[in-house]
């Protein structure tokens, strides 16, 4: 039996699973657009790694694509990690700062 669902219906059903509430609410459009944007942005960011090293950039791009598929829906994680909870912000600042120092010292 062939499914009569369009691609839109499939994506909507999948998104509703993690959004909850009405499938036609304005929050729903935000979450769906957000999910798409996050994936696109992350892939573009990964491709920017070619500035440092093209072969490493290619590896990173594939790894990121795999990670996006594995952790989907991404938007839930993005929202949680972008919480304004002080502990979480401090945690990310420490990680982030470590990366900056690592990259700059490596660049030297």
């Amino acid at each position, binding site marked *: 039996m062939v499914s009569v669902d369009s691609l839109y219906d499939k994506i909507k059903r999948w998104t509703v699973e993690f959004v909850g509430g009405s499938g036609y609410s*304005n*929050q729903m*459009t*935000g*979450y769906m*657009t*957000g999910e798409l*944007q*996050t994936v*696109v*942005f*992350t892939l*573009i*960011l990964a*491709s*920017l790694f070619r*500035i*440092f090293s093209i072969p490493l950039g290619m590896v990173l791009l594939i790894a990121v694509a795999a990670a996006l598929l594995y952790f989907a829906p991404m*938007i839930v994680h*993005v*929202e949680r990690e*972008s*919480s*304004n*909870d*002080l502990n*979480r*912000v401090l945690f*990310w*600042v420490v*990680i*982030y*700062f470590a990366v*900056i*120092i690592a*990259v*700059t*010292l*490596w*660049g*030297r």
Partner: protein
Amino acid sequence: MTESISNLWSIALLVTIPIFATIIVNLLFNRNRAIKYISLISALSLVVITILSPYGFQWFTGQPALNPNTLTFTFDASIPAWRMALEFYFGPLQQVLIFVMALILVLVIGIATNGLTKNQGPYIGMIFLLFMSAAIIIMVNDLYHLWIAVEIGSLVVVGVVAASGEGIGQKAALKYALFSALSGAGLAIALALILGLTGYSNISDAIRYIQTTNLAGMSSILYVAFGFFILSWIYAGGLVPIHPLKSEVYGAAFPHGTAMLQAQSKLMLVAIGLVMLRLFGSLPFAREVMLSISVLTMMLGVVMALLQTDLRWILAYLIVSHSGLVTVGISLGTYDALVGGLFQAVNDVLYMSVLLLGCEAVYYFGKGTSTKTAVGIAKKAPWLALAMVLGTFAASGIPPFNGFQSKIILIQSALKVGLPEVAVVILILSVTTFIALFRGIYSIFLKPAETTPLAVSGSVPSEAQEDDKETPIPRGLYLSLAILVVITLILGVYPDLVIRFLTPVAQAVSIPWYP
């Protein structure tokens, strides 16, 4: 030495007028009428001073500079020399940025003095100090003043947010205060390292020393200083990963207060960004790091804006996201990119102010700014709806508004340096900004109010009763919106009105992407 010191009068006034205004309105405390006139006159005088002032230097503490070639003292700013005094500079970039900030100050004071009923004095005082800190940061050319102004600026941000009187505002202010202590200390360490390495507190002298001296063995120290500068930069502008705290600050303050906060934030981003570009721009990987932070900020800010259901929070995250656009230009560091980034800073302050003041006006309908509660306002306030839609067009980079001009320059400069990815991100950001804003604006202004079955039975307040909660929007708010919308339109059609002020600094500071 026969030459005499030629300190520029306007620099001192741009710093002292806000301080005196703060003291006076604090003393007046609750005498609202007096506060209104004094603060409006002070703010207008700042606009006039910015327009009339010539360009020049102010040497605070007054020591002359030492010319290293002739070992003679001089007050001539055009001679490369070691400057002992704490130095301020007022040039074309400072003129245009301080003018925009002063204009927003006038409009915000007009709105705040009409809207607030109690404790006006301290609140207006803090708004003035916000202006002062931003003016110092953008004019300063020495590391001490930069640090002090950033510290003052962060404390004043805390005050403005806490003054919103809501629990969420005070919580956000406390968090921001805790964090600013960390970042302020970080900046102090960076300055100490640069001072230790070069021996100069003057930024131009330190840069000249770094460029002319072989620092191969000491470059680790420069990188650590760069790391601490980055910390200060991300904190000042709310870049990733501080974006949740800064957007909380924007979302929790009064919208007119946020208009000033975001203007101050953009000026801080530009000032610290330019100092970083001048000090560290030629270090390998430094600009790449700055660019990565900028692109991440654009991305996370706009994605988080999509998830919000309150206009205040949508705007809060978009302000953060668009800060990334400004820093993309500064990070690329080429002539075109710098012009685009600096122009974006000006445009951003203007169109975000349109949207924030429009958001403030939504409060007058008594249902808050949530997309779930405030609906169908366009019917009651069509001009407000029009201003918000035009503000959205400007923010989304739709011609003929100002946002289009700066974004197109940024996109072209990203393509020119061989980074089409950055151009694509800017393009997506524009489209997503439109979606995020229009979701909110559609719900609040255009969506008709739903009639529930209960409404028929008469058990919920009737429309007439609900209208009781509404207060007429002050004419001053409409006037402010009209002024800002017209400016966004004029700058969209004649971008050279601002760009000609930005080109001198872009020429002086720019560095090729791959030297």
